[in-house]
């Protein structure tokens, strides 16, 4: 690999990691389409590499959240029972799904995420940050576990973290405060992505030459992002991410219609 390509991958990883830490959405959502569209990687390989980026984001950021006691490790561990089962099944099945179908599913999820980000950005304009975490007891475990199973399945299938599914469910159905839900989801995605990553790694769908520079960038980006996140207005970051996600979804759909992703 040339030095230029390597530095480009480091830069992509840096942006993905930074977005992940600042917007609370794993950078995986932009890494997979970038690799598949512009680097010509087959979908399975793009997903395999992205899973490592998701683990990196989770490990780097959750070390800080756990230290600040925002993460609910007990809740996270319980829901992981479901996410890991979903991730394992999906990762085993993903191998037998053809690349175009995976690309279609991914484009749909990209649009869903863009939509949920618009809502999040809109809400962030007038909701204040919770300074002190209120007392809470997680409720409705069956709904939480069911959503986690689905989130884990998407993770194994598409290489994403599944935060856009888990966070709203924890918030609305389990009555967990937003900051705790986001931090707990962050902690969980590392384990979920790890489960699928073992299957992809074992199959040889993780390209070391591409993953190494990306992961290095993700680490740097998410450590910096988590540090500066209290000082940044999330509205503009979220809107920027919506534009990028929307653009990538359009590119993917265009490429699908013109016969790409074979």
């Amino acid at each position: 690999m040339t030095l230029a390509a390597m530095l480009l991958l480091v830069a992509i990883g840096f942006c993905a990691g930074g977005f992940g830490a600042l917007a609370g959405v794993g950078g995986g959502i932009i890494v997979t389409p970038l690799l598949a569209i512009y680097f010509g990687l087959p979908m399975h390989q793009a997903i395999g590499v992205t899973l490592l980026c998701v683990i990196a984001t989770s490990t780097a950021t959750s070390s800080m959240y756990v230290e600040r006691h925002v993460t609910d490790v007990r809740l996270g561990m319980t829901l992981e029972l479901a996410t890991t089962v979903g991730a394992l099944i999906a990762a085993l099945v993903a191998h037998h799904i053809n690349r175009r179908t995976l690309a279609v599913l991914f484009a749909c999820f990209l649009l869903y995420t863009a939509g949920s980000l618009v809502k999040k950005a809109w809400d962030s304009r007038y909701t204040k940050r919770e300074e002190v975490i209120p007392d809470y007891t997680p409720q409705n475990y069956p709904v939480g576990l069911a959503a986690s199973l689905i989130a884990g399945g998407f993770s194994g299938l598409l290489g994403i973290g599944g935060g856009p599914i888990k966070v709203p469910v924890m918030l609305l159905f389990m009555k967990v405060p937003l900051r705790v839900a986001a931090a707990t989801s962050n902690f969980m995605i590392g384990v979920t992505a790890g489960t699928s990553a073992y299957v992809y790694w074992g199959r040889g769908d993780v390209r070391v030459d591409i993953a190494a520079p990306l992961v290095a960038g993700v680490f740097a980006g998410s450590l910096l992002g988590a540090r500066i996140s209290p000082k940044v207005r999330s509205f503009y970051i979220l809107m920027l991410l919506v534009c990028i996600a929307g653009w990538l979804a359009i590119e993917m759909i265009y490429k699908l219609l013109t016969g790409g992703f074979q």
Partner: protein
Amino acid sequence: MSRQDVAADRVLSLTLKFGAYMAFALIVAGLVLQFVASWGSRVAAAGLLVLLATPVLRIIVACLQFLRERDFKYALVSFGVLTIVVLAYVLGIQT
């Protein structure tokens, strides 16, 4: 939140930090070294393996912390998650 929880959080956080920085250092070193030595890319691969080990490590550490707090319910939950993750590893190699 009890004081034991605070101590447990610190141990878990340090584990995550250790894994993150170790993987980061190995990967960056490998990326630089690969331009001067042929084994550089192996160092980067080792960094990725350390990264892959962190999910398992954080479950084991959380499980041990729950055992130390005599919270057997959540120790069992952690052990269940660990079993599934190890199963994924075994299946991943075989298929």
